[in-house]
C-alpha cells in the first residue's frame, strides 16, 4: 500500500557531530530536509546559547540588507530573483560578506546625504531667483514714487511728523502657499499700514527637497519704513519659516544678482546630475549583491539556530543533536553525515535511540494525493501510525460531492475548468500568480477534476443535464398504452388537466430504465414524490455503508496497536448495533424495492411505521408485514442491539482491570515482561503508539496503576458517542438528499425562468435569435455564479462535514503532529 495507508515509521536518532564539521553537516541536512531537530536546550534562554553571537551577526547583516532593499525600492528598481541554489556559506565567509555589505551601505548613505544637500541648495537658489525675478508692483511703485520725505500721498499719512524722514526698506522672500494669507493678515494687524506687502505666486512649481512634492511658493515683497517695523516684520517672517533674501533696490543690481544666481544654479544642477549617476551605479552593485547575499545569510542563520538546539558533549569535542528521522531515510542520513564530515577527520555518526514520546507522523504525498491528504489534515494530523483516511477520501469525497451536485452539464463545466488548470500547471505564469482565491482553486485542481468527473456520472444517473432529462434509452413508461386502455379520448383529456399513469394496467410500465432515472419523471408533476423517496433511501443506504466502512477501518488500528481485546469488546458490539438497527433498515428498503409489487400498492407496508414499531415492540394492525417472520426477526435484532450496549460500555474497562489484578498477583520474576506488556496496553489504552511508554522512566510505578474511574469514564463517553451518534449520523446523511434536491430545483427554476422564456417566445426567427443572445448570457452567468460556485462550495462543505464527522469519528483520532523537517526549501522559493 505504500505509506498512505498509515504513516511511516519514524525513529529518534542521536547525532554526534564533531565541532569542526558541525556547521557543514547541519547545512547539508538542511539542503536535503531529512530530519526534524529536537530542542535539547529548551531550558536555556535564547541569549545564553552557544552560537548566539553568530546569530546576532547574521541578524545585523539582515538589517543592513533590509536597508539596502528599501533604498532599491525607493529608487523604483526591482531586485532580481536569486539564480540557482546557493548553499550556506562557511563561517569564514561571513566576515567578507559583512564588510562588503557595510561598505555598500555606507556609500549609499553618503551619496544620498549629498544628494539631499544639493537639492536643498538648489531649492534655495531657485526661490531666490524667483523672488528677484518677479516684479511686485505696489511696493516698488511706492518706493519709487514716494520719496523719502515730503512727496507723500495723503493715504500714507503717518501718525507723527518725524517719521516722514525715514527711508523705505524692503523685505523680500518666499513663503509656503497655505501660510501666505495668514502671514498677510498678521503683518497688516501688527504693523498697521506702515507697510505695503505684495504677494505673488511663482510661475513654476518647485519640488520640495524633503517630500518631493511639487509646490508653488508665494513670493512677497514688503516695503516698510521704520526700524521697529522692520524688526517686527523680520520676527513675523521668521516665525512663519519664510525664506528671506536680500533685496537690492536698484534694478541693475538686481539683474546682476539674478544672472549670478542663474549661473550658480546651473553649476549646481550639473553636480547634482553627477551625483545621481553615481547613485544609480551604487544601486546597480547592490542589485547584483543583494539577492544571493540575502539567501546565503538566511540559510546561515537557520543553520546556527539549529546548532543552538544541540547540546555540547562533556569533552567539548562534539555536539550532540537529537532528531526525528524516517526509518527509510536512515541510510541516507548516515551517508550525508559521513560525506560532510570527511574533511574533519572524525566522522559524524547517527544512531537510533528508543523514544519516550509519540513520534511525529510522516505521510509522503505526490501532487495528486497532496490535496486529499490536505483536507484530512485540516481536521487533524493522525496519530503516529494510525490508519489514514486519505486514500479512501480520494474517491469517496468526490463521490459524495457528486451525489449532492449531480448534473451532467454542471459537472462537465467543472471538469473542463479543472482539466484546463491541470494541463497548464507547469506554466510559470500560472505558478507565479499571487491572487489568493486563484491559488486556492489551483491547489485543489485534482480535487475539482475528480469532483467534476463523478458529477457527470451522477448527472447521468439522475438524468439531469442543465436540469433537462435525456432519453438515451426509450422510457419505461408507455403513455400510449395508458391512454388507449383507459379510454383517454381528446374530450376526456380536455376535461382533465392532470392524469396519472397506473402501473397496474398492463403495458403501461415496461420495466426499469436501464441507466438512471426514467426521463418520464422530468415531465411529471409528481416527480418530487418519487424522487424524494428515492433520494432519501439512497442517502440512508450510502450513509450506513460509509459508517460501517469506518468501523471496519478501526479494526486495522486495533490489530496494529496490539489491542486484540478491542476487536471483541468494541468492534463487534459496534457492528452489531449499527448493522442490527440501521443495516436492517437498509435491508427493509431493499426488500420493499424488490418484493412489493404494483399490484399490492394500495396495501403497501410502510417501512417507517415498521421501524418505529420495532423500537416500541408494538405493531400496527393496518400495516401488513413485509415478510413472514418479520416480528420475530425484529425482536431478536433489537434485543441484540440493546445487549451490545453494556458490552461496549463495560467490556474493555473490566477486561483491563482484571488483567491488571492478575499481573499484580503474580510473582516478581515474571513481572518485567508482563509489566512491559501492561504498560504497552496501558499506553495504548490512553491512546499512544507501541514504541512509547507512559511518561519518563521515573513514572513506571504510576503507569501500572489503571485509574478505574478514568477508564470507565472514557469508555462511557465512547459508548454514548457511538450509540447516539449512530442515530444522528444516519440522519445526517440525509443532507445528501437535501442538497441534491436543492440543486435540482435551483437548476430547474433557472431554466424555466430564463432560458425557456426566450426559447418559447413566439417571435420571428431572426428576432428570437437576437433575443436569445442576452438571455443566454444571463443564463450562463447565473449558472456559473449560483449553481457552480455557490452550490459547488455548499456541496463541498457538506461532503467535507460528512467525512470529518460521520466517517472519521468511527476510527480516527487526529491528535498527532506532522514531521516538519529542517529544510531551506521554504527560503529557496
Amino acid at each position, binding site marked *: 500500500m505504500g505509506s498512505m*495507508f498509515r504513516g511511516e515509521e519514524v525513529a529518534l536518532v542521536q547525532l554526534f557531530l564533531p565541532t569542526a564539521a558541525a556547521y557543514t553537516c547541519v547545512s547539508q541536512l538542511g539542503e536535503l530536509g531529512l530530519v526534524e531537530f529536537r530542542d535539547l536546550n529548551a531550558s536555556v534562554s535564547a541569549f545564553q546559547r552557544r552560537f548566539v553571537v553568530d546569530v546576532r551577526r547574521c541578524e545585523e547583516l539582515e538589517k543592513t540588507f533590509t536597508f539596502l532593499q528599501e533604498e532599491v525600492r525607493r529608487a523604483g528598481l526591482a531586485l532580481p530573483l536569486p539564480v540557482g541554489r546557493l548553499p550556506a556559506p562557511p563561517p569564514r565567509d561571513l566576515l567578507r560578506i559583512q564588510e562588503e555589505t557595510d561598505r555598500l551601505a555606507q556609500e549609499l548613505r553618503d551619496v544620498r546625504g549629498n544628494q539631499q544637500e544639493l537639492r536643498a541648495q538648489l531649492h534655495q537658489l531657485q526661490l531666490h531667483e524667483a523672488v528677484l525675478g518677479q516684479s511686485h508692483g505696489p511696493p516698488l511703485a511706492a518706493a519709487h514714487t514716494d520719496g523719502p520725505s515730503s512727496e507723500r500721498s495723503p493715504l500714507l499719512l503717518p501718525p507723527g511728523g518725524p517719521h516722514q524722514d525715514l527711508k523705505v526698506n524692503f523685505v523680500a522672500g518666499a513663503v509656503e502657499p497655505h501660510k501666505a494669507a495668514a502671514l498677510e493678515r498678521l503683518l497688516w494687524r501688527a504693523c498697521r499700514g506702515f507697510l505695503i506687502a505684495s504677494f505673488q505666486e511663482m510661475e513654476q512649481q518647485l519640488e520640495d527637497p524633503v517630500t518631493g512634492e511639487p509646490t508653488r511658493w508665494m513670493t512677497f515683497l514688503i516695503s516698510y519704513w521704520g526700524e521697529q517695523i522692520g524688526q517686527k516684520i523680520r520676527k513675523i517672517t521668521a516665525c512663519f519659516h519664510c525664506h528671506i533674501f536680500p533685496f537690492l533696490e536698484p534694478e541693475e543690481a538686481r539683474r546682476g544678482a539674478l544672472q549670478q544666481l542663474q549661473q550658480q544654479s546651473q553649476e549646481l544642477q550639473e553636480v547634482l546630475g553627477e551625483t545621481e549617476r553615481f547613485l544609480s551605479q551604487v544601486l546597480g552593485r547592490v542589485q547584483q549583491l543583494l539577492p544571493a547575499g540575502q539567501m546565503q545569510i538566511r540559510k546561515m542563520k537557520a543553520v546556527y539556530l539549529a546548532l543552538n538546539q544541540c547540546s555540547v558533549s562533556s569533552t567539548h569535542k562534539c555536539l550532540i543533536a537529537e532528531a526525528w528521522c524516517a526509518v527509510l531515510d536512515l541510510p541516507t542520513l548516515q551517508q550525508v553525515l559521513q560525506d560532510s564530515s570527511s574533511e574533519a577527520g572524525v566522522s559524524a555518526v547517527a544512531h537510533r535511540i528508543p523514544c519516550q514520546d509519540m513520534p511525529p507522523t510522516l505521510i509522503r504525498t505526490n501532487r495528486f494525493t497532496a490535496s486529499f491528504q490536505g483536507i484530512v489534515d485540516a481536521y487533524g494530523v493522525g496519530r503516529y501510525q494510525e490508519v489514514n483516511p486519505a486514500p479512501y477520501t480520494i*474517491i469517496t469525497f468526490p*463521490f459524495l460531492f457528486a451525489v449532492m451536485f449531480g448534473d451532467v452539464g454542471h459537472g462537465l463545466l467543472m471538469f473542463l475548468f479543472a482539466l484546463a488548470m491541470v494541463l497548464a500547471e507547469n506554466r510559470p505564469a500560472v505558478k507565479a500568480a499571487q491572487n489568493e482565491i486563484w491559488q486556492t482553486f489551483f491547489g485543489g485542481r485534482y480535487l475539482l477534476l475528480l469532483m467534476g468527473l463523478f458529477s457527470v456520472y451522477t448527472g447521468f444517473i439522475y438524468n439531469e443535464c442543465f436540469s433537462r432529462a435525456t432519453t438515451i434509452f*426509450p422510457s419505461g413508461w*408507455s403513455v400510449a398504452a395508458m391512454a388507449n386502455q383507459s379510454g383517454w379520448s381528446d374530450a376526456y383529456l380536455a376535461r382533465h388537466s392532470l392524469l*396519472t399513469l*397506473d402501473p397496474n394496467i398492463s403495458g403501461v410500465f415496461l420495466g426499469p430504465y436501464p441507466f438512471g432515472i426514467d426521463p418520464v*419523471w422530468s415531465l411529471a408533476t409528481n416527480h418530487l414524490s*418519487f424522487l424524494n423517496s428515492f433520494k432519501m433511501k439512497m442517502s440512508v443506504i450510502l450513509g450506513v455503508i460509509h459508517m460501517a466502512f469506518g468501523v471496519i477501518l478501526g479494526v486495522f488500528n486495533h490489530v496494529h496497536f496490539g489491542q486484540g481485546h478491542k476487536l471483541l469488546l468494541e468492534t463487534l458490539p459496534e457492528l452489531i448495533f449499527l448493522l442490527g438497527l440501521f443495516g436492517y433498515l437498509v435491508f427493509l428498503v431493499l426488500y420493499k424495492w424488490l418484493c412489493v409489487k404494483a399490484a399490492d400498492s394500495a396495501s403497501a407496508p410502510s417501512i417507517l411505521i415498521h421501524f418505529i414499531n420495532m423500537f416500541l415492540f408494538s405493531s400496527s394492525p393496518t400495516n401488513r408485514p413485509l415478510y413472514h417472520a418479520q416480528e420475530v426477526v425484529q425482536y431478536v435484532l433489537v434485543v441484540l442491539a440493546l445487549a451490545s450496549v453494556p458490552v461496549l460500555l463495560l467490556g474493555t474497562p473490566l477486561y483491563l482491570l482484571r488483567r491488571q489484578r492478575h499481573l499484580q498477583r503474580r510473582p516478581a520474576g515474571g513481572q518485567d515482561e508482563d509489566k512491559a506488556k501492561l504498560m504497552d496496553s496501558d499506553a495504548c489504552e490512553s491512546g499512544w503508539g507501541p514504541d512509547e511508554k507512559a511518561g519518563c522512566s521515573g513514572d513506571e510505578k504510576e503507569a501500572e496503576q489503571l485509574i478505574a474511574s478514568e477508564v470507565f469514564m472514557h469508555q462511557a463517553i465512547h459508548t454514548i458517542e457511538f450509540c447516539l451518534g449512530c442515530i444522528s449520523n444516519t440522519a445526517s446523511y440525509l443532507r445528501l438528499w437535501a442538497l441534491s434536491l436543492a440543486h435540482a430545483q435551483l437548476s430547474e427554476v433557472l431554466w424555466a425562468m430564463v432560458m425557456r422564456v426566450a426559447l418559447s417566445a413566439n417571435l420571428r426567427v431572426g428576432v428570437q435569435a437576437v433575443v436569445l443572445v442576452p438571455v443566454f448570457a444571463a443564463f450562463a452567468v447565473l449558472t456559473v455564479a449560483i449553481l457552480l460556485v455557490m452550490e459547488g462550495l455548499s456541496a463541498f462543505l457538506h461532503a467535507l462535514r460528512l467525512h470529518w464527522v460521520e466517517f472519521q469519528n468511527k476510527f480516527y483520532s487526529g491528535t498527532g503532529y506532522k514531521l516538519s523537517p529542517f529544510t531551506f526549501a521554504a527560503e529557496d522559493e
Partner: protein
Amino acid sequence: MLFASCAPETCARRTCPPRPRPAGHPGSDMTAHSFALPVIIFTTFWGLIGIAGPWFVPKGPNRGVIITMLVATAVCCYLFWLIAILAQLNPLFGPQLKNETIWYVRFLWE
C-alpha cells in the same frame, strides 16, 4: 430522442395511419425493458474494473493508492447505479402528467 413522424396536431385529429403493434403489448409498440440484461452488463463492467483491474496496475510507489482508487470507484458507482435501478423496479405509483404532455408524448414516444 425518438421523434414522431407526424405532428401532434394532425395526430390529435386521428388521421394517422394505424401502426403494427407487437403482440403482448396492447396499446403500444414499445418494447419492454429487461432487468436482467442491464444487471449483467453493469455488474460485469464494474466487476472488471474493481476486481480484475487491480491485477493490471504496474508496480511502483503508487500501486496501493491506485488499487484503492479503482476498487472504491467501482463500489461507489456500481452501488449508485444499483440503487437507481432497484428503486424503479416495482413502482407503486406512476407519473402524473398534464394533458398537454399526454397529447404529444402519446405519439412522440412510440
